[in-house]
């Protein structure tokens, strides 16, 4: 399998602090790549660099061979890289289905002019149908018309996923998707993420919780202090001494 | 059949009742920027209408004032003009903002209804639209400056400064003043505007001081802004004489600008020593218990002129009233002794160009008339 997302030499400094240092990894087509690490390991910074929220100090990120580092977030989304937020960020003034339709924003072909002339109804209906399917897929089918402010935290997370899927991505970036979820919700989430990979959409998963991530990921990259300390299959990483050290160390510090 | 007859009788009764009064529309401003001027003028009109009614009304019918508040909004004002016409007003008196009066004209012109402003002084009101149903008896900005200049002739002014505010009337009068000064071949060495909301007029006065004029002309009409100007003038210890628009004639300066106005020359349309004024003030005090001022006089003269026109027309037919108004000559409260409103040769500005007076503040009091007319 070829690399869909290539990260080379990625570095980010905030003032004197190096949050991410010379990071290399890649996400291949259709795989689930997990990035783990203790608190402050640089996971979130890495995520935000790829998603375009932060500007990198150095390095290169290529998606499908094209450089995407330095592009605005909406351009990265338009290329087919969608994301979820760790703290759910629904659009509070819209029902669930419309939230999902915002995710499909870049996939609409109708111009404003044709919207004004009422020629975009067929496309709108088609997209709406497809959004309904996605709502169904993540298990929010009955809540499609509900006000998003009435959703529980776990349902909100599912909405984040449906919204990201609506952009017909080739890669989805998950920012700590299991954070704040109950065990049952985590199990359901894992199932959905496997389902996404089964649709041959690549997944990059940033996660703090090893117990959630390791059974799910195809490959794992471990970060500590902004640098990669290990990578490989979940089974290999689990027993890697540096990893155990980092995690035990970080737990001891709590 | 009986029912129809009853209905018809009722209709006739209603019509007769409607015939009872002569309806005069008044468009004023009770909440907006023109309120300080519109309210007293309206009070003067109400007083005048009562006086007429006590004496038996006009053509044996009572005058009924229909007062509407346009909030100084021109678009609302035009709608209210239509309302008054729908309600049967045969004449409309406008004492709100000048642009509001202007916008009412688009309606009165179309509906062929006589309209007059007894107070608005912007020159453009009769020049922009050729509306034969509209008259203006407020003293024009161009008359004000001509009168001031006639009085200042012996001072032999050559270099003068002009200051005004950015209200619409202030700008209009400023424009008229500039025209008058240029016509008199004076050099306007500096021209300043103090915008509404300014917290200091010092920079403007400094600039005028630097230009070193023989005199300063104040065209502004916003009292608070003029007080600000006079304060800066006093604080900078300036000495050149001030000649001011008719706004200085409102009595509020005597209390609101205490210690600031002594020696200021201003133009007025009101002579307290005129017998008609003395009579008006005495009855006004007696009837209302309040102290009248020149602003009340504008409204009073306005309703009197309308009553005269209707009397002369001998009918409430709008076309006849129009003709009567155009040929009217009438002496009222406003203007110099003996001044008469008239509209010669189809002119629609009725205030006699020689009917304004010049007065000077003595201490905080408005002094006697020191000059009359443009000669």
């Amino acid at each position, binding site marked *: 399998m070829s690399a869909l997302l290539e990260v080379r030499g990625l570095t980010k400094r905030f003032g004197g602090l190096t949050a991410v240092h010379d990071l290399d990894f890649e996400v291949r087509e259709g795989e689930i790549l997990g990035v783990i690490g203790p608190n402050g390991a640089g996971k979130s910074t890495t995520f935000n660099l790829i*998603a375009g929220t932060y500007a990198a100090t150095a390095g290169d990120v290529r998606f499908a061979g094209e450089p995407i580092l330095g592009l605005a977030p909406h351009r990265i989304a338009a290329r087919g890289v969608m994301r979820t937020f760790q703290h759910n960020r629904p659009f509070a*003034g819209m029902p669930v289905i419309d939230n999902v339709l915002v*995710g499909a*924003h870049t996939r609409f072909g109708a111009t404003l002019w044709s*919207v004004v002339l009422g020629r975009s109804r067929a496309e709108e209906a088609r997209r709406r149908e497809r959004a309904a399917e996605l709502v169904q897929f993540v298990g929010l089918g009955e809540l499609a018309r509900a006000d998003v402010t009435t959703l529980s935290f776990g349902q909100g997370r599912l909405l984040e996923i449906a919204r990201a899927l609506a952009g017909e991505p080739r890669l989805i970036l998950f920012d700590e998707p299991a954070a704040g979820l109950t065990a049952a919700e985590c199990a359901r989430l894992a199932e959905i993420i496997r389902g996404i990979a089964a649709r041959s959409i690549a997944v990059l998963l940033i996660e703090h919780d090893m117990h959630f991530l390791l059974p799910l990921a195809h490959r794992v990259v471990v970060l500590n202090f902004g640098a990669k300390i290990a990578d490989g299959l979940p089974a290999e990483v689990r027993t890697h001494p540096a990893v155990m050290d980092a995690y035990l160390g970080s737990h001891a510090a709590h | 059949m009986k029912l129809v007859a009853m209905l018809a009788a009722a209709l006739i009764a209603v019509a007769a009742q409607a015939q009872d009064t002569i309806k005069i529309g008044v468009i004023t401003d009770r909440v907006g920027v023109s309120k300080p001027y519109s309210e007293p003028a309206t009070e003067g009109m109400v007083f005048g209408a009562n006086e007429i009614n006590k004496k038996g009304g006009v053509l044996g019918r009572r005058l009924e004032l229909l007062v*509407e508040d346009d909030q100084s909004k021109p*678009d609302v004002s035009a709608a209210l003009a239509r309302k008054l016409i729908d309600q049967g007003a045969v004449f409309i008196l406008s004492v709100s903002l000048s642009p509001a009066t202007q916008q009412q004209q688009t309606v009165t012109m179309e509906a062929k209804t006589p309209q007059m402003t007894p107070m608005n002084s912007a020159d453009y009101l009769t020049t922009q639209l050729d509306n034969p149903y509209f008259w203006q008896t407020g003293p024009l900005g161009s008359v004000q400056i001509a009168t001031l200049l006639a009085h200042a002739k012996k001072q032999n002014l050559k270099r003068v400064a002009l200051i005004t505010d950015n209200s619409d009337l202030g700008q209009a009068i400023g424009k008229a003043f500039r025209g008058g000064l240029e016509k008199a071949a004076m050099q306007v060495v500096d021209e300043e505007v103090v915008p509404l909301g300014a917290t200091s007029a010092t920079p403007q006065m400094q600039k005028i001081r630097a230009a070193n004029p023989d005199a300063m002309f104040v065209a502004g009409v916003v009292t608070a802004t003029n007080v600000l100007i006079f304060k800066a003038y006093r604080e900078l210890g300036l000495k050149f004489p001030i000649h001011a628009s008719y706004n200085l004639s409102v009595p509020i300066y005597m209390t609101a600008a205490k210690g600031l106005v002594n020696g200021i020359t201003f133009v007025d349309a009101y002579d307290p020593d005129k017998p008609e004024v003395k009579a008006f003030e005495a009855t006004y005090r007696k009837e209302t218990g309040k102290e009248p001022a020149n602003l009340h006089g504008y409204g009073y003269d306005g309703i009197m002129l309308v009553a005269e026109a209707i009397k002369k027309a001998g009918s409430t037919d709008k076309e006849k009233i129009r003709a009567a108004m155009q040929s009217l000559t009438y002496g009222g409260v406003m203007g110099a002794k003996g001044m008469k409103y008239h509209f010669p040769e189809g002119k629609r500005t009725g205030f006699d160009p020689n009917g304004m007076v010049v007065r000077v503040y003595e201490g905080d009091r408005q002094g006697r008339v020191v000059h009359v007319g443009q000669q």
Partner: protein
Amino acid sequence: MKSENPLALRATPLIRGAGAFIVLAGAAFFMGDYHNDVYRKLLLWVTLALGYNFLFGVCGQVAFSHFAFYGIGAYSIVIFLFQLHLPFPLAAICGIALCIAFALAVAIPSTRLEGFYLALVTLALGQLFIVVLNEGGTVTGGTGGIANYRLPEIYGLRLRGPWYTAVIALLVVATYAVLVRLDRSWFGRACRAVRDNPEAAAAMGVDVARTKVIAFTLTSVLAGIGGMVYAFVDNTVNPPIFGIENAFLLLFMVIVGGAGRHAGAVIGAVLLFLLPFWLSPLVGHHHALVFGVLVVAAILLEPRGLIGIYDRVADRYKGSPSR
């Protein structure tokens, strides 16, 4: 679905729009001059409120330039027609072009600003516009504005009285249709997303700056077109109409009615425009005070706007769970 006559499907919104137009325009023919005049101005306020609601309620941008654009439209059509003597269609196109140019000039740099900074820039713009009108000499007529013109004849017809009201009714219906269509499209959702959470919107592929610029330009142009129509309501244009006071009133209309809701904007505009007309005979010069108290009370009791009352009633009848 597919078995239905596609023509019938496509005609529905058209028929609805035509119906609304006939009702709105037809009403004018049963009114006297006064009510027609108030009605015309009311319909124009409704148009403005609909556009402003899209900008403020749907897209979340607080701007006070709406009346400046209304004025640019009004003054430009008059100046182009009667001073430059352009033919009517060309004058209208030039007026719209002018609105677009000004709107872009304001919007493109302003998208860097958030929330109340845009409000302040547009507040300054609104005041500046009045300064320019007052100082515009013979071009704008200064404080007296421009008068003494009439709607030119188009194909030998001069629209007057209720017929001109019909033109305004058409404007309202067209504005409503355009805005509702936009609102229900990807563009409307993008606007709401930008309002609710710009960062999340960007992550979904929405170009936040571009969306704001388009929304601002579009609604400003709609205001400009409204202004062009206004110019022939009383056949005079003058500065006080286009001042900041009216911009605040427009904001109140949208808030009291219900920001983000087209029906709310209509309700707010109708109520607040007519309120002084009703109150003035009842309470005299206290009407402005009562107006203020009512606005505050409305916001206190219905922070989501009066449309909220309708929603609750509708919910009860539908039996759906209340919010």
